[in-house]
């Protein structure tokens, strides 16, 4: 059993990482982190007893972040929960750039835990 959390380059991404850690700790399982940012992810501050594996996007096949995450779910049959952080998006923004969260919510084969940054 593993929790997969999706980390983007935003406050939501950091919150998703925290929520993923919490969920994995709660369930007592390993954490898989999909790094959607374009840089390295700092995981030094995570609890030392939690087993964390980071997967990076690599190459044109991972260009679409939604596909990259869903491929990861398919590759890891032990993943049975997806943790994401959602935020309100303007309709124009969604049309222009799409909504990663919305597609993950609709297309994920495993249950999705969608958290929000407390206002």
């Amino acid at each position: 059993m593993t929790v997969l959390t999706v980390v983007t380059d935003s406050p939501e991404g950091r919150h998703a990482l925290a929520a993923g850690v919490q969920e994995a700790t709660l369930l007592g399982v390993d954490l898989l982190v999909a790094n959607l940012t374009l840089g390295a992810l700092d995981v030094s501050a995570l609890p030392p007893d939690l087993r964390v594996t980071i997967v990076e996007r690599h190459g044109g096949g991972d260009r679409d972040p939604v596909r990259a995450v869903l491929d990861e779910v398919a590759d890891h049959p032990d993943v049975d929960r997806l943790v994401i952080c959602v935020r309100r998006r303007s309709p124009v923004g969604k049309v222009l750039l799409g909504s990663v969260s919305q597609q993950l919510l609709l297309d994920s084969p495993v249950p999705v835990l969608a958290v929000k940054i407390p206002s």
Partner: protein
Amino acid sequence: MTTHDTTPSSERPALPPDTRGPHSQRLGLIVVVATFGGLLFGYDTGVINGALEPLKRDLGLTAFTEGFVVSILIFGAAAGAIVGGYLSDRRGRRHNILMLAVIFMIGTIGCVLAPSWPVLALFRFILGLAVGGASATVPVYLAEVAPVERRGGLVTRNEVMIVSGQFAAFVINAVIFNVWGEVDWIWRVMLIVALLPAVALFVGMLRMPESPRWLVAQGRDDEALAVLKQVRTDERAEAEMDEVHRLADEEAASKTAGTTDLSVRWIRRLILIGAGLGIFQQFTGINSIMYYGTQLLGDAGFSDSAAIIANTLNGLFSVLGILVGLALINRIDRRRMLIGGFALTTTFHLLVGLSALLLPDGTAKAYFILVFVVAFVFCMQGTIGPLVWLILSEMFPLKIRSLAIGISVLVLWLANALVALAFPPVVEAIGISSTFFIFVALGLAALVFVHRTVPETRGRSLEELEAQFRRDYA
């Protein structure tokens, strides 16, 4: 996706030195042949400068159709850079350069035989596709064939070949114009000369190997090793395969991010800065001199045959500028050199404008304008010209580099085309002096832009840069 690798990638085994031998000659030949692509790039963009006067009379061009015929090659280059980059990844560098050589030939012959300006424009667009394709393929091919110690130098050689191609076009045009006189169809003779390097590129490239890095990226390791053994010692070739794999992997990584990643503010901001660099490099008007220099000098007061000779100085100082610039480029901080460059070019724009405005018509005025234009060309090619390309290659995070450079280069070509399109009608409408005062205003805007936004990339790692961008723009 790939699982995280925690070992630092900087620990690489040292390669055996690249000793000289029969393979060095082979590599030298490859460089000479491939840089014919750069030479053609320069020749085909420069040849219009000098051919334009007889061409205008022969085909009855107005200021607008003149700008159209000149700039459509650059619009073609913008399209060619995108398509060429894509095709060179799909079909291979060698295949792409061969195809480009054929397009260079078709475009040249079509332009030479064009009975009217719309036909000329069509074939100049086709020629532009080849120019853009060459700009996207030749430096990549050279970098992938060269040993790591000589990589920078060989890629630089292509840049020198581009301006040398322009210089060669200016000189050959001046000779043809002054020897065979003012026959209106003389421009066709000027244009057909470009067929020679295109044929040389095609014939030469037939005997050149494919890029080893591209072969590795296709999973064709045996062929890649065979190519490496042609251009390295056997020992070095074996040792270098790991390096080639690493670089192929890095290149794949550079294509990771796509348009979705533009939702991140600091990345969007960084790409805007890259695009801004491309725009301001072209808004110095360097290519208005490279395409319309002869006409400009004619307007300044030179006779037609003197203007075309004086214009060769633009080509000469363009080459000298690049050579000086490349010698300085790693000794001075990028920002300092860029700001210094824009300060110099803007000053010379101002001096050209003031000379055109204040001096009485005559030989003295013509020579003053010539000196200031040549000084502008020298300063531009010695600083902003090569620097912008270098900064673009350094400033983006690896994972989005391919997309970010693609966008910046596209914008750069479009800005180039816009200046080429607008220059003749603007000069006709408001004169040389006011046109150069517009360049002064654009130069001042460039100074503010560079001072406020462009990051210093010299001697800094990508991680440091990224941390700064996040801090500044997030």
